[in-house]
């Protein structure tokens, strides 16, 4: 397969992940079951006339993509590929509420138009006047990884050389409420929001947008090489280690070649055992990183994980806020990411120093 480099990144999240610095100052959550994002100055990126119809998820996607493109020095990508599990839920909620409130009458077009999953990809393309390949993957917690795989294939097949790829999720008030009732989100007022020590079900949620410029060409801004991505819909806990070894073997690596692992712990007592399978056994002797205490959980939170891994490879250090153990390595050459949600949508991603 052709090489695929991460040449630019943009991240809008519950932390200040734009501008200078790399998680030097973090907001540690103790009181909230849904984290608010750290808002960029949208007007720097979006003209008021263009932004007035956009919900925050669309704006965040546009800002994150603009940051990634700027960093990579790219005006026009050859493809725009987006992953989102829930899509533009704020406008969906607005439209559905209008149906109920007005007894199915007086329905306005704006929220309906903006409610589709591919609104973010479409608005990015409109802003750039980019008529290239534009695709949105809606595959639950592997939506972002699906987008990554497509981007890699586009580059490998020579269909595109520079691909804008990202994950976007939006927290709608009603949707968060429903997820709390369902138990996916921890209840308000609980005291065990800490991801690593939690003994309760569910997780702390949030939203965000993370975009990457992936390219077949290495350049000065390159963070890392995106080596491989693998997806498994369903795995038992005792299958995880074997699948990881297969994944590494496919990339001519074994466990001893891995310098750090980024795990998607989210504080759900029912499913964090999947991560323990690796953290307490096979990968117990390497630096272990977690991030959902900073980003919150959402379908494309793993894009925040890839942002984190890319930064570690480029900067060659791990911020203390994301360390699970105290093991350090002289060099962070190969980092593997493992994520799953409720025992489904498992993904392995491998990035390497280049």
């Amino acid at each position: 397969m052709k090489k695929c480099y991460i040449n630019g990144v943009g991240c809008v999240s519950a932390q200040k992940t734009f501008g200078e610095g790399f998680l030097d100052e973090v907001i540690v959550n103790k009181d909230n079951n849904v984290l608010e994002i750290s808002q960029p100055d949208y007007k720097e990126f979006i003209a008021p006339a263009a932004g007035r119809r956009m919900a925050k998820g669309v704006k965040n996607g546009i800002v994150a993509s603009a940051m990634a493109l700027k960093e990579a020095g790219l005006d026009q990508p050859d493809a725009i590929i987006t992953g989102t599990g829930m899509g533009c839920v704020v406008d969906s909620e607005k439209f559905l509420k209008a149906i109920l409130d007005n007894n199915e009458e007086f329905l306005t077009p704006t929220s309906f138009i903006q409610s589709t999953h591919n609104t973010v990809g479409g608005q990015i393309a409109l802003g750039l006047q980019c008529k290239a390949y534009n695709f949105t993957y809606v595959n639950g917690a592997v939506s972002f990884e699906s987008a990554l795989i497509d981007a890699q294939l586009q580059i490998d097949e020579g269909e595109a050389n520079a691909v804008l790829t990202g994950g976007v999720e939006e927290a709608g008030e009603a949707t968060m409420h429903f997820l709390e009732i369902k138990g996916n989100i921890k209840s308000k007022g609980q005291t065990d929001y800490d991801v690593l020590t939690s003994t309760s079900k569910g997780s702390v949620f949030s939203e965000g947008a993370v975009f990457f410029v992936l390219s077949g060409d290495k350049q000065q801004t390159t963070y890392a090489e995106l080596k491989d991505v693998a997806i498994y819909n369903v795995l038992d806990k005792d299958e995880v280690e074997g699948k990881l070894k297969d994944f590494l073997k496919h990339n001519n690596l074994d466990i001893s070649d891995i310098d750090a692992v980024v795990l998607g712990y989210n504080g759900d007592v029912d499913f964090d055992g999947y991560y323990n399978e690796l953290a307490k056994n096979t990968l117990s002797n390497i630096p272990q990183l977690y991030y959902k205490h900073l980003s919150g959980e959402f379908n494309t939170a793993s894009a925040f994980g890839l942002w984190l891994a890319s930064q570690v490879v480029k900067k060659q250090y791990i911020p203390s806020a994301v360390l699970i153990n105290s093991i350090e390595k002289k060099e962070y050459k190969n980092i593997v990411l493992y994520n799953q949600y409720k025992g489904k949508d498992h993904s392995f991603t491998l990035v390497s120093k280049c």
Partner: protein
Amino acid sequence: MEALKQELKEKIITILNLEDIQPADINDNDALFGDGLGLDSIDALELIVMLDKDYGIKLSDPKEGRAIFQSIETMAAYITENRTK
């Protein structure tokens, strides 16, 4: 009529999410579309729904909208003459 004009300005700002614009910034005779407030065809649909929902006016001929939505002045005059609620 003046109260209606003020009401329309407030509604337009809220419904169309016109950030950074205050009712006082909109003159009664300013063009709402094109060079004036810069509204577009999607906004026109929002205004048509607003007329129906808030004033009981159904526009059967979309071409009528061009004249009605010319300015706050024309909108207020049309609503005053045709409103059913």
